[in-house]
């Protein structure tokens, strides 16, 4: 198990390889579709951004509301690819270094990760109650009007991650799945399955 802290530098990032399990402590910022769009629009309009993302990690999550006395409600990852149109700008221009979500990324994002020495982490989709327990502090720092889609600053301890796309552009999904695949993929091939009767 690799233990890392935020903010991330390239020394840390380059040691992490696709499929590695990682335990992260430190600060995460949350952000989903609406927050990404607003950040990009604000930057392109030349206005000041509400958060400094240099070296930081964004967690794609829209948590449940916190019960009284709790830090946050259940908080697992959402599907990352919806953020892909905004990600290259966040990494290149705003200095974002890590992302946490679930699912594949587009080739454009993989290319940016490689070029900029960034990293894409996965965490366990649907393990939201467990992940919420690793969040020790949560405060809204921007866009409260977005409700669960607001930008929160989270402080996490031992947050469980898997390296999804490493800084060489390798994918944990591709490498993991190829070891266990027994039949051809049918996607987009139009080809017939094996053992057809």
């Amino acid at each position, binding site marked *: 198990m690799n233990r890392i802290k935020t903010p991330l530098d390239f020394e840390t990032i380059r040691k992490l390889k696709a499929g590695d399990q990682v335990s992260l402590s430190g600060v995460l910022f949350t952000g989903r579709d609406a927050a990404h769009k607003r950040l990009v629009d604000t930057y392109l309009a030349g206005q000041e951004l509400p958060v400094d993302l240099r070296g930081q990690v964004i967690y794609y999550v829209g948590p449940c509301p916190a019960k009284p006395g709790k830090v946050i*409600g259940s908080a697992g990852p959402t599907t990352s690819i919806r953020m892909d149109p905004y990600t290259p700008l966040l990494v290149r221009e705003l200095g974002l270094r890590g992302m946490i979500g679930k699912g594949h990324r587009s080739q454009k994002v993989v290319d940016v990760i490689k070029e900029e020495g960034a990293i894409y982490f996965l965490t366990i989709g*649907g393990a*939201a*109650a467990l992940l919420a327990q690793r969040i020790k502090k949560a405060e809204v720092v921007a866009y409260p009007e977005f409700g669960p889609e607001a930008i929160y600053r989270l402080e996490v301890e031992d947050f469980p991650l898997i390296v999804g796309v490493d800084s060489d552009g390798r994918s944990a999904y591709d490498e993991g799945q190829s070891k266990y695949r027994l039949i051809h993929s*049918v996607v987009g091939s139009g080809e017939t399955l094996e053992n057809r009767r």
Partner: protein
Amino acid sequence: MKEIHVKDITETVEKLCIEACTTLGNDWWQTMDKAVSQEESTLGKDMLGIIRENAKLAASTGEPICQDTGTAVIFLEMGQEVRIAGGNLYHAINEGVHRGYTNGYLRKSVVSDPLIRKNTGDNTPAIIHVDIVSGSDLKITVAPKGAGSENSSGLKMLKPADGEDGVIQFVMEVVEAAGPNACPPVVVGVGLGGNLEKSAILAKRSLLRPLGKRHPQPHIAKLEEEILRRINSTGIGPQGLGGRITALDVHIETYPTHIASLPVAVNIQCHASRHAEAVL
């Protein structure tokens, strides 16, 4: 005639929304135990272990299993001897959803218009399916459905000549395209036959069947097993990180169809296979 008051319906729906989002059935636990023992990948086993640990934690703390507490999909089986008293049935159900999602601190994920996209603030309206049955009971099932798996679902109007092979091919295409986005291990619900909308409802309804239970008709039961075998040969595995257990089960429901049609709907359910029911 049996009279059921809308107040009781509202209270029941409120309770079921919270119960469904925080606890999973015995069938789920048994199937997961089996999945852990069958998984060959170490990372896959770890993922299944975390998913189980999370479900245990949710049940003991009352926190939602997943933050996407979904759209509230509600199935009613309403006896034709039932009379609803005190108000409108649909209003009563939506009031129950409003209370359940508010009092249960569940996430509100419904927008009022698909293009304007403003959150309704209380997860209403529910999506309600009603079946009229014999008798004087009202059975209410609440099945919250998250977007990760729902967005990975699909429907295709096959040609009758495509037959069983065509059905298998389409289900496999949907499952492969869903990959990690649908939070595997998934449950695959298939609606076969009927027409466009009938097949979709059959697929959704099939997800309510207990895991591990086969279709009563032998040729459909066999097809379920065959598709499950193929899905678990894709290597997608738990969370898509590679492994044996991509699906926990495949459920197919069928309906008579037109001489020229072979509709197939595939509704993917993530591992958070949530539903709770009560009979009034």
